[in-house]
């Protein structure tokens, strides 16, 4: 009997070891939550590492290339991404993270990187029949607004919407959208680029007309790095500066939007007449990062 047990244990150990492959070239592991078009989402026609696409994925590839490493993307839910960095099971999390105070306390945050109107504009979307019916935060009093849990939008809702407005956190934005469509909640707070992707895929949803006031430090995205890893922080910041200098952000963002099936430029609504390319110069990443440092 003991022999049998020993054999089984050995068999299980060898099975476990199959996962162990010694790799020579260094791998940069990046966590992201691919449910956030156009920043990161899954291209269902591909598989393996290639299936993850979007702005942040392009950025991750750029950083890996610059550092001479292979990129490995680890997809997981948004809250798990933060745990992954904290526990050190990935090197970076690049998943459309905005700067928030709590994050700054628990992680090293990179300099800002620019992600088009996805972050500079934070909006509330609602059902098509109420399109444009909201202009001020007070219009939401007595209503229920959904948002992604532990996100910038959750912070914005809590700080800018009236107190008698119920704020309902969701694990994923899609669940909030579903609640909106089935009439359980009245509106959903999302980033503008995300809102475009949602509306492009869904006739029954429209912009509410309300836009959050977004502070300078929240207008751009940051990369999450484990606290204490100064070398990686410096490397990532150097990569971001390079990408900014080469004017790559706007190109990546347009590509990502096209991949996500969002009508670009002309279709983009309201006062977004300013074309995409100069928009980058208007929000220089360096400048806003300096502002952030002063705060």
């Amino acid at each position, binding site marked *: *009997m003991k022999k049998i*047990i020993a054999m*089984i244990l050995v068999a*299980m150990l060898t*099975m*476990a*070891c*199959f*996962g*162990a*492959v*010694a*790799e020579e070239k260094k791998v940069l592991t990046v966590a992201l939550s*691919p*449910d*956030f*078009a156009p920043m990161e*989402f*899954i291209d*269902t026609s591909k*598989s393996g590492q290639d*299936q993850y696409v979007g702005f942040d994925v392009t950025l991750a590839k750029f950083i890996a290339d610059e550092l001479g490493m292979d990129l490995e993307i*680890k*997809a*997981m*839910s948004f809250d*798990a991404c933060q*745990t*992954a960095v904290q*526990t*050190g*099971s990935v090197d970076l999390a690049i998943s459309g993270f905005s700067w928030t105070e709590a994050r700054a306390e628990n992680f090293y945050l990179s300099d800002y990187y620019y992600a088009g109107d996805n972050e500079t504009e934070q909006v509330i979307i609602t059902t098509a029949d109420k399109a444009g019916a909201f202009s001020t935060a007070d219009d939401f009093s007595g209503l229920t607004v959904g948002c992604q849990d532990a996100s910038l939008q959750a912070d914005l809702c809590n700080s800018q919407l009236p107190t008698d407005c119920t704020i309902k956190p969701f694990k*994923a934005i*899609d*669940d909030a*959208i*579903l609640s909106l*469509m*089935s009439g359980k909640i009245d509106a959903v707070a999302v980033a503008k680029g995300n809102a475009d*992707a*949602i509306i492009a*895929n*869904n006739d*029954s949803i429209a912009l509410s007309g309300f836009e959050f006031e977004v502070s300078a430090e929240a207008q751009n995205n940051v990369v999450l790095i484990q606290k204490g890893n100064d070398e990686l922080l410096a490397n990532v910041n150097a990569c971001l500066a390079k990408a900014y200098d080469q004017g790559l952000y706007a190109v990546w963002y347009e590509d990502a939007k096209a991949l996500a099936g969002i009508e670009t430029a002309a279709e983009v609504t309201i006062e977004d007449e300013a074309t995409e390319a100069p928009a980058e110069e208007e929000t220089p990443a360096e400048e806003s990062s300096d502002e952030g440092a002063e705060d």
Partner: protein
Amino acid sequence: MSFETICSNIVKIMGEYWYIFLVKGVGITLLLSAITVAFGAILGSLFALAKMSRIPPLRWLVNIIVEVVRGTPILLQLYIGYFIVPQLLPFMEVSDFTSIAVALVINSAAYVSEIIRSGIQAVDRGQTEAARSLGLNGGQTMLRVVLPQAVKNILPALGNEFVTMIKETSLASTFYIGDLMTSYLAVKGRTYLALECQLIVGAIYFVLTFTLSKLIGLYERRLKSHD
């Protein structure tokens, strides 16, 4: 959100993404749950043996593991499996799939050990007494008399564990393992049609579990006919 739109959306989604759901998703879900149940059964048997052993510390240890696993949410166990296990084993590279599978195996083993223990203990004590008085020793009694009868109690319950695991593996999608629920996340992330995708995977899960429990029922009846 009318019924017709939902139906036409489902048809549209299935037309475009059937491969993601039916091949990729179903494949990984079945693979993951089969691995979980197979290794869960092996480890669960060891747990059951330890629980019934005469060495108190071993009994305590396994009891603690089983109670903790049964008393905490499986999502938490997956987090621990995904984040902590690879750190405990820094000398080898544990793939995502492996770490999730390990967490699920331990979870399944806890339940299986109870199934096996109760299956063995459900065999009438008189059987053991009769075997012993006929001169068989403890090991022979277990192997020749008790276990063959216990298996009849255990196998159907193990089958049900498999059915349960098919559904439980859906939680692994938190880490985009590629199972059926990951397919759901991928497609809904693309189409923003959460309800339709949810209904599609729901139907697939039902077909899987229903077929399986019917098969188990069939097998159970065959076992009974030998009585």
